[in-house]
């Protein structure tokens, strides 16, 4: 057998007709394998004359190279066809719905969010946060705050009492966060500047009262803080809290046994529409109780009232949350209805800061 032009054509044709990789491999062995046609022709070269050998040799080399290229490109082509076929078989229905992590369904309760907001504001004004127990002695809840046993103000408080095994020290559920004033002051030395948020309790339950609610107490005691500073502090707070510049507040004389003078604080609002608007209109809404710390309270905390003075104020946290976020019914705050929590709750990523703004 000798080399002929037709041989190349014949082999290339065979390759091009091949339909699978196995057949192609058979062709490769039949042509290029050790005992393949082209290998045998190469072997036969030694029988030829040097001139013929040279000529035939170079032709055979070209033939070998062409066939080899043709096989490898055919191999790629067949591999691609096979891959495509397999991929088509692997098709799945990508319209099937997927479950997403529940993380975004977690929410922060509006009271917690508002407490974070309030802490942020007072923190920026240099107030610390001081806390006290929910179960208080009558001493801290009343006596130390200048509310002796017989005081009519005790009745205004609708106090929850705890079972007492020794009558000497009666315990109550604190009716306000004011006991923290005394607890904090007696542990340290003036000046003081702190807020105390927390749960408070009163034996009262109707549409606008729940037996448990949240208060935040603020206290500043030093040698010269007066009512003008209190007014500025509350104005500054409400502006920052409601994120409004046009907050207007009004002070009204009132009475708390633990402050003297005592006053109540109203903010200007508009009640004419379906939603109450702060900072507009001509109605007043009571938002805080405040006053200058009563000398007796300072004395109960071992502080000299001749040298030190200061103001205290109390805010209803739940009410502030209601006002800011338009939540109508106080009772819904504490019944844990997940539809409510989902609706009024805040994303865990929504961390109030002053640089960002308290609201997202």
């Amino acid at each position, binding site marked *: 057998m000798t080399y002929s032009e037709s041989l190349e054509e014949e082999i290339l044709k065979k390759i091009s007709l091949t339909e699978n990789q196995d057949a192609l491999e058979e062709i490769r062995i039949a042509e290029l394998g050790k005992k393949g046609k082209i290998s045998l022709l190469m072997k036969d070269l030694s029988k030829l004359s040097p001139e013929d050998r040279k000529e035939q040799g170079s032709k055979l080399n070209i033939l070998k190279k062409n066939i080899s290229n043709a096989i490898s490109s055919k191999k790629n082509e067949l591999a691609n066809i096979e891959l495509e076929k397999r991929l088509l078989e692997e098709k799945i229905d990508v319209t099937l719905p997927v479950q997403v992590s529940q*993380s975004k*369904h*977690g929410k922060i309760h509006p009271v917690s969010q508002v407490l974070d907001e309030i802490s942020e504001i007072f923190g920026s*004004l240099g107030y610390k946060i001081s806390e006290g127990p929910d179960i208080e002695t009558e001493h801290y809840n009343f006596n130390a705050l200048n509310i002796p046993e017989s005081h009519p103000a005790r009745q205004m408080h609708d106090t929850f009492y705890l079972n007492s095994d020794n009558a000497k020290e009666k315990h109550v559920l604190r009716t306000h966060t004011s006991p923290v004033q005394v607890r904090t002051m007696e542990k340290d030395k003036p000046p003081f500047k702190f807020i105390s948020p927390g749960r408070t309790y009163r034996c009262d339950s109707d549409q606008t009262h729940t037996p448990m609610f949240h208060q935040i107490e603020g206290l500043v005691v030093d040698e010269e803080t007066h009512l003008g500073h209190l007014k500025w502090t509350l104005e500054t707070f409400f502006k920052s809290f409601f994120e409004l510049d046009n907050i207007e507040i009004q002070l009204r004389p009132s*009475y708390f046994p633990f402050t003297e003078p005592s006053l109540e604080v109203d903010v200007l609002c508009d009640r004419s529409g379906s939603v109450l608007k702060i900072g507009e209109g001509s109605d007043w809404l009571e938002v805080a109780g405040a006053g200058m710390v009563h000398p007796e309270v300072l004395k109960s905390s071992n502080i000299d009232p001749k040298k030190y003075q200061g103001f205290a104020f109390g805010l209803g946290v739940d009410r502030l949350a209601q006002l800011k976020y338009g939540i109508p019914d106080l009772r819904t705050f504490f019944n844990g209805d997940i539809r409510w929590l989902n609706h009024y709750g805040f994303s865990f990523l929504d961390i109030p800061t002053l640089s960002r703004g308290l609201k997202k």
Partner: protein
Amino acid sequence: MKFTLSWLKEYLKTDKDINTILENLTNIGLEVEEYFDQYSVYKDFKVAKIISTKKHPNADRLQLCLVDIGNDKIEVVCGAKNAKEGLTTIYAPVGSTIPDSGFKLKKAKIRGVESLGMLCSKKELRLGEDSEGIAELSDNFKAGKPITDALNLNDIQIEIAITPNRPDCLGVYGIARDLAAAGVGKLIERDKKEISVSGEKFPIFLDYKNQNDACSIFSGRVIKNVKNTKSPEWLINKLEAIGLRSVNCLVDITNYINFDQGRPLHVYDLEKISKKIGARNAKKGEEIQALDGKNYKLDDDICVIADDEKVLGIGGIMGGEYSGSSMDTTEIFLESAYFDPVQIALSGRKLNIMSDSRYRFERGVDPTYVLEGLEYATNLIIELCGGTAEEISVIDNRKFVNKKINFTPELVKKMTGLEIKNKIIREILLSLGFKVSNDWELTVPSWRPDVSINEDIVEEVVRVYGLNNIKSEPLFNDQQPSKSILTNKQKNLRLIRRIIASRGLLETISYSFINEQDAIDYGGGINSLKVLNPISEELSDMRPTPLASIINTADENSKRGYGDLGIFELGPGFSGKNADDQIIIASGIRTGSYRLEGYGKDWQGYNNVDVFDAKKDVISVLEELGVNNQKIKIKESAPKYYHPGRSGQILTEKGNIVANFGEIHPKIIKEKDFNIAVGFEIFLDCIDLLQERKSIQTAPNIYNLQPLKRDFSFIVSNEVSAQTIIKAARNSDNSLIKSVKIFDQFLNEKNKSIAIEITIQPIDHTLTDHELEEISLKVINSVESATKGKLRS
């Protein structure tokens, strides 16, 4: 405290309009709670006379009334039984608003017949409590006359909130005095008439002994030949306008003076008094039927009014039924006394009686007005009921002396920031009834028991001067920009809240009290944590853990159809009454299939929650807070409200509880609407100790050499915990073994096979085969000896 504008004007000469008066009341601390302008409310209503009635064609209970309304005769549908020919009543035309319901009348067909307006009951018009039938007026009124004229409804009713420190404003006169001080008008003094007196002093006594002098002034007089009658119209109207019921003229007079002057008085039927009258301690076991119809058992610290044989009344609180005046009374003893506020408060609370008299005495009435009040009442009684007054008997142990205060006027500026001239300060104090000496020694008026220190005077001054004049003054923050204000515990609390929420749980806030059974189930229920006066039985015990609250919250949601849910609460749990017994616990619960990955049926398959979902929540929190997990260990099984075999407790090395987690005990959820719940409790107090807070980090250990992994499999008894194996493997070579992971486990009846993967981090040289062999041997030996198990061959 209720009063009317016309009543106020008896004591206040003013040309100010109603709005100015209302505004000023609030501004001086007498907060206006409500006001009711009768003219604007009643101007549309007219007197009407029923001419004739006939049956409604379509309704048995309704009548068609032909009504004369002065300028017209119209037909009105009426359902009242008392609507009959000739009745004079009140007509509300179309377009008027019914005061009680706020309903605006429109032309309407009632069962097919058109009604032009309606006939009203007193209740509908807020003119009384009577809702039975339509109003029945005197026939003297002409049809068509506006009821504002006919019934004299031109006044304004005002209700103000009086703070407990202001007993002086529990009478209309006192309110006028305060308004006059604020410049709203001029105070009009009451005319004082001389009384001609005959007869003798009635014998009285004052014999109360205790720590406080419950009754320090007792006085009274006899009035004979009185004729008790129905009160005159003006008196009835006055009392009704402030919501008081007219009883009889004598009683009405004392009630009137109570509200007019803030001076409680009492009238006794002289016939019922044996020999003498006075105040003394009650005797233990004595009883009295009071005017409220209730029987009260008395104690010896309660001050009673008595004659020489029996109790006649509870001093300063309420008179007795027996000795009170009636229409037949002709001779009376009129009492005026001073009772101690503290003693009245204690007695009132002990007996649980509220009365207008107690209300005033416990706040402090004017001790110098005892006799004047008595004279005032005597005058009125003689004027309205006739009679002759006898001499006044009086015992005064109090000998009242006005308080003196050495005032420092500079304090006004120091406490309020207001610059008020001394002259103005002086004027304000004078107008409030203080005497002011040249060197600022103040004499406090007898009607102001609340004023005793300099700060009280400052309040009086700014209250009248106007709190709204106070100027804002910045309280500069000396630490700008401020540093962190939170303690580590406060930081943790805030972070934990958001970490738990990031795991898909909703934050709830529940009441700190729960019912008794729940308290017991969750390890509480002790006696000292029971609320004495709970708002309901469901809220009777302070909870030991918020978990107890939120399981019920979950249940309520399940009952609404939301059975797969996750909620949490960060709140207090109580183990005793002391401040230290209250701890903050972060509790969470997942029910049904509520897992972080998703919940509810799904084509990719779904599972109910299990103990590991709760454990993941806990571990996520601890890891995020930087708790060093070398410092904690896990104890199998948690408190009794968890499934004993599917719960765990995370402890510090010293054994303090960091957290509980697990399946909630099947007994606890038996009654609930879900079939499985897992929960956790993280105790915040412990966490702070386990955290490493470093502001400057040491350089990280980044090795150039590749870590190597080796797998081992051990057969151990089922009793051996995974934690034991991990610890043993980990501790076999602390310097080179970086982590140990369990990647497989097979359970048989007695044994289990646990497969672990060890990660070895070479530090300064590539490990030789020999060295690796040594590490492997150490792992095997350590695990085998710790577990009494065997390497699986």
